[in-house]
């Protein structure tokens, strides 16, 4: 803490009259630097996934073109030329980058469609699930995290500690299976899979998220059904992030409770509720939202395990099928999309933080 304090005092001393302008300049420099790092990272991710797929044995042309075309040398040569497979490795990589920049992620070997078409179909389904799960996690995790902090070392805190540790220790695929068995198979309370009932037709495509699209079209019963189908996979996906956010909220609220201004607020005679809601939760929320941004990324990982059990036609299920079928263009496409989302989220979180707390962008 002392180094941070030192930093603040030196910066205030160093920032002279045109303080406001200097700050704006700093902000833009900060944003530019972060954006540059983000672009470099995406490039790095592409390189890593490209190199990984080089390890896999097999002829991509043979896998992609099918039996008939493979006997036609012209078709094979055309395919190889398009993806630069007849060139040395660095050129192949540059061709790959070039194609990606033009929206061409290659052909999926399982669906025989462009990977970009596949992704456009599956990404919204996963986003819908992940957004539902993160909202659920924030509601539950923050509420109980605050409760744990204000009752620290008493029984609610102890119970919540075990609960949150349980949440982060639970194998996602196992809790998915158990929830599926009990809530769907045994009791039939919740639908066991899919995004809608088999008899229903999805709403016209706007965002690809059924709940949002149904709302935009004013189809209330369809909205209800889509939401109902979200509950089971969403809850399962959220178990980990609920535990994570609960623990983090508790820690950051405890950290802030130790501050002098909190003691001052109490000394002033404010009721504990006001102290916690206004003086503690608000500063804590900044860092909680940061962690939630990162946790959203981890939900995309969890989706791989959850979607395969609840037959949720999303990115995770697609990634799984690509991995076991060694569908390389699809694996590279999924990695790229997920990494871009990850990097984008971190960028957003960084920027938010820099905007909120000037000390960070100055350091």
């Amino acid at each position, binding site marked *: 803490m002392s180094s941070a304090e030192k930093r603040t005092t030196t910066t205030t001393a160093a920032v002279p009259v045109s303080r406001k302008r200097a700050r704006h300049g700093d902000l833009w420099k900060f944003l530019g630097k972060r954006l540059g790092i983000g672009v470099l990272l995406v490039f790095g991710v592409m390189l890593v996934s490209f190199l990984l797929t080089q390890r896999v044995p097999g002829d991509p042309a043979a896998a992609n073109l099918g039996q008939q075309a493979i006997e036609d040398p012209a078709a094979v040569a055309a395919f190889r030329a398009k993806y630069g497979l007849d060139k040395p490795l660095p050129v192949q990589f540059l061709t790959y980058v070039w194609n990606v920049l033009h929206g061409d992620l290659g052909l999926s070997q399982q669906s025989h469609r462009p990977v970009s078409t596949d992704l456009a179909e599956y990404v919204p389904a996963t986003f819908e699930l992940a957004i539902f799960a993160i909202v659920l996690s924030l509601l539950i995790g923050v509420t109980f995290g605050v409760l744990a902090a204000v009752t620290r070392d008493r029984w609610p805190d102890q119970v919540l500690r075990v609960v949150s*540790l349980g949440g982060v*220790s639970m194998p996602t695929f196992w809790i998915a299976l158990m929830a599926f*068995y009990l809530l769907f198979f045994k009791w039939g309370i919740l639908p066991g899979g899919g995004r809608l009932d088999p008899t229903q037709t999805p709403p016209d495509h706007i965002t690809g998220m059924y709940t949002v699209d149904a709302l935009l079209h004013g189809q209330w019963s369809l909205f209800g059904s889509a939401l109902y189908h979200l509950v089971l996979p969403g809850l399962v996906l959220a178990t980990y992030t609920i535990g994570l956010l609960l623990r983090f909220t508790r820690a950051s609220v*405890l950290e802030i409770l130790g501050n002098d201004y909190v003691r001052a607020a109490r000394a002033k005679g404010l009721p504990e509720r006001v102290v916690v809601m206004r003086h503690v939760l608000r500063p804590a929320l900044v860092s909680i939202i940061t962690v939630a941004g990162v946790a959203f990324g981890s939900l995309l990982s969890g989706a791989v395990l959850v979607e395969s059990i609840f037959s949720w036609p999303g990115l995770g299920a697609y990634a799984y099928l690509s991995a076991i079928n060694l569908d390389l263009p699809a*694996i590279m496409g999924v990695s790229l999309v997920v990494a871009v989302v990850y990097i984008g989220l971190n960028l957003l979180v960084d920027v938010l933080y820099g905007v909120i707390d000037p000390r960070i962008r100055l350091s």
Partner: protein
Amino acid sequence: MGVDLALEGPAGASGLLAGDAAGDQRGNLPGDLQAAKKRSSLPWRQPLAIVGMVVVLAWIVVAIFAPLIAPSDPLAQDFVQLKAPSAEHWLGTDELGRDVLSRIIYGARVSLPLAVLLVLGAMIFGTILGSLAGFFGGWVDAVGMRLADIVFAFPGIILAMAVAAALGPELLNAVLAVIVVSWPAYARLVRGLVLSARGSQYVIASRLLGASPLRALVVDIRPNVLGPILVMASLDVGNAVLLLSGLSFLGLGAQPPTAEWGAMVAAGAQNFDKWWIGLFPGLAILTVVLAFNFIGDSLRDALDPRTAKALRD
């Protein structure tokens, strides 16, 4: 903590750890660690930590004495397939008529050593790279840390899946895949610790006395880095078990007929109406991971000056 945390977060599971690593970089030197240790309650005085240690010890005993404890051969197939728990088969039999209890007991021999192995692997690799980056700085630092950033930019299981798929579905390849995913957290932590130790008086003194960089790193800096690294590693075992069993669940880790917990849950998913096939191996994973998290959480509480401060006030 903001930027550090945000950058380090993408490890997902180790997000909390990374936050602590950032805290360590900020000035929580080993000296503070020792003081914090004395200030707050010792980890082994905390009930949760004791429960965790007992459970871990119990699983180690089970793994060592598996042939003596298990009622039958984990690979022996019986004619009674998919049999519900009974006096004969306490936890029932699976789709090939194998005893679920015996397979869980033998499964401890797969999951526990491999989890330790891959945490060690990630720790060693990350520590070497992190200390070189922190000590030499310059391009070594730049290259090493950008590499860590790239790995962080992948969500754990997707990168592990890609690696495991590229190397071929096999248990050892899955271990390798998890190591590839988890070393950067160690590299970050070690780099920060080495960076702050490098500038300290005693290291400068040792260099002035003619010690080589390597000697300074190994003799003078290492003792200050070792503690936090071991804490982090003990926190990481639970995550390692989860990741590895997750890969096996997806069919990218242990191959049949190996008795591995994640793969056993996958068999339970194939026969989801026979609840006992999936329930019990999953409980085994849960108890192991929970036990390690109990220990880790208590350790962290005891060593983290921030929560310790709040507790004191």
